[in-house]
């Protein structure tokens, strides 16, 4: 684990159970602890069913933890209500999902301006320009008025990356961002994420099955059966 005096996020002893108090209660995360510092590019790997997506949902404030402590920028989140979680999610996090998850009724540009629209009720000319610039940066300057259905899988994922980064959140969470793409598109998207990371100094926590991509991150956390098996620099993985 990278030591950082002031980590961006800090999880300590996280437990997550489903069906609490019922006969079929199941604990998915067993005391997970780690931190992500500012500007880190971290891969979260592990076999299917190891709890990666659940952990990402907890980190993304989409699911509540059952026990433990989760701090974002030093603030404890476990006591926040739904509105509080939503506002932190809006302010601190960007999301890239495996299946792009763009809104099909909106153009690429509108999808990218959505976070600004929901935050302020309108999109200022500056925000519009910023969204255009983000789409240009991900190579979609000529496709920004197309609907998601008119774009390839790789292009849709690039729109999703632009949307996740448009408000420059400190941390982007990506759940198998290349899992649904062919190898060429997968490489293209990953290179793009690394480039944006380098340009914006945004932290990334990327869930992936692909050891090839994990090895290209700064740090790799391996989750097995709901517990952290290893947390080491990617250079160690490559070796």
């Amino acid at each position, binding site marked *: 684990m990278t030591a950082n005096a002031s980590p961006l996020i800090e999880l300590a002893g996280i437990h997550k159970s489903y069906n609490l108090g019922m006969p079929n209660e199941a604990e998915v995360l067993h005391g997970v602890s780690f931190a992500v510092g500012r500007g880190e590019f971290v891969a979260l790997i592990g076999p299917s069913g190891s709890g990666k997506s659940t952990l990402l*949902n907890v980190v993304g404030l*989409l699911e509540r933890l059952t026990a433990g402590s989760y701090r974002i920028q030093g603030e404890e989140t476990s006591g926040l209500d739904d509105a509080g979680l939503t506002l932190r999610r809006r302010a601190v996090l960007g999301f890239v999902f495996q299946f792009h998850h763009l809104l*099909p009724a909106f153009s690429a540009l509108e999808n990218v301006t959505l976070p600004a629209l929901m935050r302020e*009720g*309108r999109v200022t000319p500056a925000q519009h320009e910023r969204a255009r610039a983000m789409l240009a940066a991900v190579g979609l300057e000529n496709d920004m008025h197309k609907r998601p259905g008119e774009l390839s899988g790789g292009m849709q994922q690039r729109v999703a990356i632009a*949307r996740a980064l448009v408000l420059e959140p400190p941390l982007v969470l990506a759940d198998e961002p290349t899992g649904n793409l062919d190898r060429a598109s997968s490489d293209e998207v990953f290179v793009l994420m690394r480039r944006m990371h380098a340009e914006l100094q945004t932290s990334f926590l990327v869930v992936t099955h692909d050891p090839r991509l994990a090895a290209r991150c700064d740090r790799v956390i391996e989750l097995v059966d709901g517990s952290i098996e290893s947390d080491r620099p990617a250079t160690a993985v490559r070796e």
Partner: protein
Amino acid sequence: MLNWLGFERRVAVRFLREGRMQTVLIIVGVAAGVAVVAYISALITGLQRNTLEKTLGAQAHVTVSALDNVVLPARAPLAGSSALVQTQPRVQRPRSIANWQSLVPVLEAMPAVAAVSPMVSGAGLAQRGEASKSIALMGVDLDRYDRIVHLRSKVVQGEARLGPGEGIIGRELAEDLGVRVGDRISLVTGTITDSLRVTALVDLGVRELNRRTVIVPLRAAQSLVGLPGGATGLDLALVDVWVAQSLASDLSRRFPYKIESWQEANSQLVSALNAQSVSTALIRGVVMVVVVLGIASVLVVSVVQKQREIGILRAIGATRGQMLRVFLLQGAIVGAFGSTLGVLLAVGLIKAFTTFVRGSDGLPLFAITLAPSLALSVAGIATVCGVLAAVAPARRAAALDPAQAIRM
């Protein structure tokens, strides 16, 4: 405000546009409901107004007359005994209201009363040559009586005038007697016979009234009925016809006269109008419930269809309140568009009714218009119904767990 709803507006409109056929169908459904409600309301309002105008156009809103003659018991039965009594009802002869001249200004001073007209009424025969017809004789002061039933506006021939020896008769009676304006007829009441020159023929709106009505100067009627200086009744016109019942009750408590409102005189008509109003309200209520259920069912389906989009929006920062408002706004938009279309449809239906549905005389049966206030209230209620219909689906959308919705 605009900024506050900017996100909700954009998403709501886009969701509706995306579900094209679904949206069109529900807007058409709302429009049909609104059109039915607006059309039926306008139709029933027109029908009731027409019925009331016809009914009240020929009669007073409140009538004051002398109490009926009654038989008083000769003596009370002895205690502990019972008596079998058979009573012959007394003949009801025309009686004058005591002190009617003093009562008129008292009644006229009441704010609810628009006009008061003394009347002497009785029965008799109208004769011309060999023709003889039974009549209802009314003696009035023309100017006062005109303020009660607008008699001058009902003249179909001649000029309404009631000088000494002059009279106004119903159109059908003139036909039965073969009389034209300017002709003379004889009036017979009991042992008294008089003659009058017909100055005008009137159409009171009811054929039977036209066949029996003879209107003469008050003084002539007093003489014919045998009530010199008397008045058998006072006719009252009110500022608001619907206060007649309460005014009549109030007057009955204060004065020793027989006082009857137009509602009491036309109790069957009032019952029919009430039944009609209740039926209309029921139809409107049922149609609005159907509209609400229609909008709600479409929005429920929309929430199910859009679970993933709702999950994405929630994940990237939309609050529960924003998602709630997106769907409430969809209900309001569907309600507003449907209402506007429905009001236009109702205007078309009313136009078709007045164009194609006509009486035997080729004229429209009655005036039917969609008052702007009615159109606005129906449209407003439908829009509110749209929002109410969206409450359950909107709450469901707001309550969706984003993590679960995204996985779908």
